[in-house]
């Protein structure tokens, strides 16, 4: 494997996605975060919402299935389906952050309650078919997320809505399900089932009607006749109370295409996630949905990327090999002392500690070194430091291999979609579950340039600086 070129460690797409102008632009009214599961979609949505709010916008974040602690950090661990104001944000710019967790059954119930008189609403809500549909139909969650989005938009209380999308089986579901549910409930078949009387009157439809009764007969036998009756009552009740589902689904769909909506595809630099992302990008284009760009989460970097994996491994072996010999001979101290004298040019005493030390202790590196050398450890300290250093080098080799894998995956994506603006978010070692963590993510989302390695520090081919 060739040594990774440091200049290529970061993606150099045709465009860098700058999220701040997008978040600050008052014309941006809806941001939809989509992508496959497990790529940090919800966290991204929450971080974007927080960042926009702290830049003065009145934001509501609609999450679908947040991790418990993330939800708690925003104070929305209660499932009451209404936006709650998030406390603890910096509101000096005049912004507000609200957040809510989607309860799909509740949302469905609310639609019914809002459109039907009490008696009819009760009949619908108590219908077993409705109960099954509202809690478990494969597209209900997606449909209800869109429905809720439409409701929030209609209330016009917020100037920016950030939506997380459901963890679908595939990227397709999110766009297709509302239509599917709409056309299912509005479809020809269900119309036929619910209005056989109308058909009977028309001569040309006789044949079809015979087919229908055979079919309802079969379905009735299979499912038990009562289920079909439940469906029929349900659909006609729904239909007479508030128009067609398809109309509603279409309206939401148009809202997504409208100016003011921006889609962000969220992915991680992994093969499958980026494959899904590419697919999503194509799909959004085909549906005329406005794509703002790709958020690439959990991208790794290294401050020592000039040290290749191969060299790091070779150095680690250098440190480990003599140790094995020493363990046999029991002369570790003898080996280490001259070696350390020879090859390391120890810092001159008195040199001021200029560079910031990343050692956990506060003291300056020089002092640390001295105190350690003076005290000494019971067993051979140099040897265990060598062992630790070898570990550090192996860790670095792993990191460098990861970097080049991520690079290859990203390159494949950019080759396919050079038009897509990209922002990268550096990986965090742990999960995010407080506002501070979300703020950090927000900073990383926005600060693509600042993350770039210092150009003075490394040689770069001139064409890469564009």
């Amino acid at each position, binding site marked *: 494997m060739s040594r990774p070129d440091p200049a290529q460690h970061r993606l150099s797409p045709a465009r860098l996605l700058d999220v701040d102008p997008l978040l600050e632009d008052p014309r941006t009214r809806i941001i939809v975060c989509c992508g*496959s599961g497990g790529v940090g979609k919800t966290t991204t949505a929450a971080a974007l919402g927080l960042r926009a709010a702290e830049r003065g916008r009145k934001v509501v974040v609609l999450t679908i*299935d947040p*991790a*418990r602690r993330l939800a708690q950090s925003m104070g929305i661990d209660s499932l009451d389906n209404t936006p709650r104001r998030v406390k603890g944000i910096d509101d000096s710019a005049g912004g507000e952050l609200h957040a809510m967790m989607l309860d799909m059954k509740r949302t469905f119930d609310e639609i019914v309650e809002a459109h039907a008189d009490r008696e009819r609403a009760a009949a619908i809500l108590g219908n077993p*078919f409705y109960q*099954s*549909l509202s809690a478990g*139909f494969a597209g209900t969650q997606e449909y209800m997320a869109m429905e809720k989005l439409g409701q929030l938009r209609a209330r016009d209380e917020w100037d920016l809505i950030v939506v997380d999308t459901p*963890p679908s*089986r595939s990227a397709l579901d999110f766009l297709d399900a509302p239509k*599917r549910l709409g056309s*299912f409930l509005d*479809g020809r*078949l269900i119309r036929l089932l619910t209005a056989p009387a109308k058909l009977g009157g028309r001569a040309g439809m006789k044949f079809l009607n015979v*087919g229908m009764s055979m079919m309802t007969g*079969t*379905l009735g*036998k*299979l*499912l*038990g006749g009562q*289920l079909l009756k439940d*469906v029929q009552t349900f659909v006609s009740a729904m239909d007479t109370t508030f128009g067609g589902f398809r109309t509603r689904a279409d309206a939401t769909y148009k809202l997504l295409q409208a100016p003011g909506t921006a889609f962000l595809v969220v992915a991680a630099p992994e093969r499958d996630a980026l494959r899904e992302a590419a697919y999503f990008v194509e799909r959004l284009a085909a549906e005329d949905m406005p794509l703002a760009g790709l958020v690439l989460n959990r991208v790794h970097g290294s*401050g*020592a990327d000039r*040290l290749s994996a191969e060299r790091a491994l070779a*150095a680690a072996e*250098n*440190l480990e090999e003599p140790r094995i010999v020493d363990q046999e001979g029991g002369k570790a101290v003898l080996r*280490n002392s001259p070696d*350390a004298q*020879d*090859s*390391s*040019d*120890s*810092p*001159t005493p008195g040199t001021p500690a200029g560079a910031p*030390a*990343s*050692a*956990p*202790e506060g003291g300056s590196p020089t002092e640390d070194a001295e*105190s*350690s050398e003076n005290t000494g450890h019971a067993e051979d*300290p140099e040897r*265990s*430091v*060598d*062992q*630790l*250093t070898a*570990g550090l*080098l192996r*860790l670095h080799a*792993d990191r460098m*291999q990861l970097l080049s894998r991520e690079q290859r995956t990203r390159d494949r994506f950019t080759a396919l979609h050079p038009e897509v603006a990209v922002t990268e978010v550096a990986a965090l*070692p*742990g*999960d995010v579950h407080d506002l501070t963590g979300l703020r950090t993510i927000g900073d990383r989302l926005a600060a693509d340039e600042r993350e770039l390695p210092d150009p003075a520090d490394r040689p770069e081919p001139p064409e890469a600086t564009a």
Partner: protein
Amino acid sequence: MSRLQVVSGKGGTGKTTVAAALALALATEGKRTLLVEVEGRQGIAQLFETEALPYEERKIAVAPGGGEVYALAIDPELALLDYLQMFYKLGSAGRALKKLGAIDFATTIAPGLRDVLLTGKACEAVRRKERSGRFAYDYVVMDAPPTGRITRFLNVNDEVAGLAKIGPIHNQAQAVMRVLKSPETAVHLVTLLEEMPVQETVDGIAELRSARLPVGRIIVNMVRPEVLDETDLELLRTVPRSTVARSLSSAGLGGARRGGHAERLVDPLLAQAEEYAERYTLEHEQRAVLAELGLPLHELPLFAEGMDLAGLYELARELREQGVS
């Protein structure tokens, strides 16, 4: 050993991979297993590097020692047609129903119905016998829906009870539930050593248990190798930078003096180690959470270069060595 092995897990934990490895592991020593896919993602075909699976059982791999792995991607619509065929001898009327959208209607009308068809097909394969009286498959491994949906998916009886109170679907649901709630079945959950998947596993197990579905094992997937151990991490907290610089220098990485090559590596390397230490602590916490569940716990290694067929056989061997099959 349960003959129906259901594998679930949070999305992104590699449950399809684990299900496939388990099917391979169970097929060793001349056994025959059926690997069943229910979500129409063609993940199995991708994994075994073959073309998309049809709705038909076909051999996709040979296990060490002469065993065979068959695979089947269940299509709920075709399963329903099958089913109608079996009970009503529909013939071409079935195709007419399909044309009218009736099949789509019936399979979407109630998620419960869809699930009965999927689990029903798997249970049928479990019970199927050859003429010799031997079971057609020694084991059936199901790549099931994710943890968040698994209890609903398996608990078809409850799902269907409210909808189809009588009729063949009702009876089928009853028959399926008898298999699923028996020791014939084990539901395994795949997780990662991360907070969210572990939390989902804990919640999922509670749900399965309250639905009285038999919980099998927890399989921790993609476990990273331990590069630094407890002692190293202890030392990391106190080690002077200059000592590390000298050590790097002695390994041939340049000067340890301030500004020297080795010295300039110290900060970034220590920063990477800090990240490692943080993750190490998190992983230990998550391991402890999983251990409290009191279920057999297995760990499978991460394949940094991504999963391929060779990796799959490797995982199968690992599962066998850990006594899963």
